[in-house]
């Protein structure tokens, strides 16, 4: 049997890689990709928990979260298109985002 801890740990790893990507990369599209990665990493935790807890809630939550991710992607792309028209390129550092 695959221990549930393995799923949760893997999900944590993907989530942290996503967070690091958001913090370190400066390309808007890559940052957005990392955010999508974070969202889908959460799905692993939810489904593994749901399976080992004998509850359906987590499965439904993932179902809903996927739709949310897609909806966000649609609005995000529209904003990228607009930004591209104005700046001729979607760069984050030129517009001073995330000065950590």
């Amino acid at each position, binding site marked *: 049997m695959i221990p549930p801890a393995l799923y949760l740990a893997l999900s944590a790893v993907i989530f942290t890689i996503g967070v690091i990507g958001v913090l370190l990369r400066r390309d808007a599209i890559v940052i957005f990709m990392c955010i999508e990665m974070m969202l889908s990493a959460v799905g692993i*935790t939810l489904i593994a*928990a749901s399976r080992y807890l004998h509850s359906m809630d987590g499965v439904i*939550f993932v179902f809903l979260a996927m739709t949310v991710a897609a909806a966000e992607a649609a*609005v*995000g792309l529209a*904003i990228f298109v607009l930004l591209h028209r104005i700046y001729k390129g979607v760069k984050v550092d030129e*517009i001073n985002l995330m000065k950590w």
Partner: protein
Amino acid sequence: MELFKVDVLGRDFLAVAQELVLLSFALGVLLLGVILKGDRRRYTGYVALFGYVLAFLPLLGAIGRGYEAFSGMVVLDPFSLFFKVLILVVGFLVVLLSLDYTSREGIAFGEYYALVLLASAGMMLMAGAAHLVTLFLGLEIMSIAIYALAGIMREDARSVEAAFKYFLLGAFASGFLLYGMALTYASTGALHLREIEGVLAQKAWLTSFPLVLVGLGLLLVGFGFKLALVPFHMWTPDVYEGAPTSITAFMATGVKAAAFAGLLRVFFTALPALEGHWRELLWVLAVATMTLGNLVALRQEDVKRMLAYSSIAHAGYIMVGFVAATELGRAAVLFYLFAYAFMNIGAFAVVALLGRRGAPNTLLEDYAGVGFKHPLLAVAMAVFLFSLAGVPPTAGFMAKFYVFSAAVKAGYYWLAVLGVLNSAVAAYYYLRVMVYMYFREPKEGLQTGYPSFAGAVAILIALWGVFQLGIMPSDFLALAQRSVQVF
């Protein structure tokens, strides 16, 4: 199997009746925006305004009731009604302020008001959430609508930039929030807020279990981004400065109120067992938030940006009441949010009215001599700024008084002292605007002001609110106290 437990047109629907009114008006406004042509599209705003008024009606049947609806997804109780009224007031004032502002900026079409209505419905769902899923979806409905609204001035680089930053940071925050919820679920096995509380009360060992604590931390980060608490605030000034002023007012008051409603729900309904852990965390966040917000606001030369930092600082003051965590503290949070809504929307309404198409006039220098050119607007602005600074007899003073006295009563003396010191520092930058308005010669050739009847009405309502809550606060505080008794 309790299949089809939802009853049609009964108590379940009463719990979301106000949202339903707003949503039907959102669709109506959208259709109307297609039918009307050209300049007449701005009439969609009046329809939206009517929608907000109509959405007060279901209150008549809902006051005093408390039950969960839709198989425990939403809850109707005094707390949710309090926030729904607050969100309706905010939405009403924002639409009122938008009526002429949007025609001036050329963004007066149906989609604008439809998105404002949708965002309000999302906020209400957050306030009435009894389940983490509802909370998350409400937050997303609100956020997605506001990402689009922030970028609605499509030809203006700053507006699009604001939308872009708000989108990236907002989506980042949603990721944290979702993961926090997932870890809470993984450790407790429940997503329903009361069930989580029950599990944590039953299994005491869970309260020091690392998975629960990591989940708590992630939830806090997610909410921290939405509330612009200090380590997570860097998007706020740029977004508030770039977004259309009416939407900035909406973000600073409505989004903040909804996020606080969600935070109160999650922390006090679901996670009271972890109070020892989050109180210490929030203490630090509150102090950092007010101090940094105020210190950076001192140096701002742009009024909109200054108000953005001031809104960060105010989130810190509100957090003080949250840390106190007594009934008075929670009531003070509710009171503060209402007072803050009036004074902040008022201030942004004045900022909006002083601008012109293509010239927002938000620099501090542009305010030189406004006291003589537009005496009435300047007086209103002075009142709002006094209220934000916390001078009696305004709402801002009473709000700060309740928050800090709640902190003292809960034994957080240092927090209260730091809060009072912060308010003293903050007075400087609010007074600076007034100095510019009344003691500086106006800049040559600068055109300010845009006549707007609706904007004036919005300012009058906000003025009334500021004085009503400032002079006769006790009834309202009692209402807030009744509302927080659900926890």
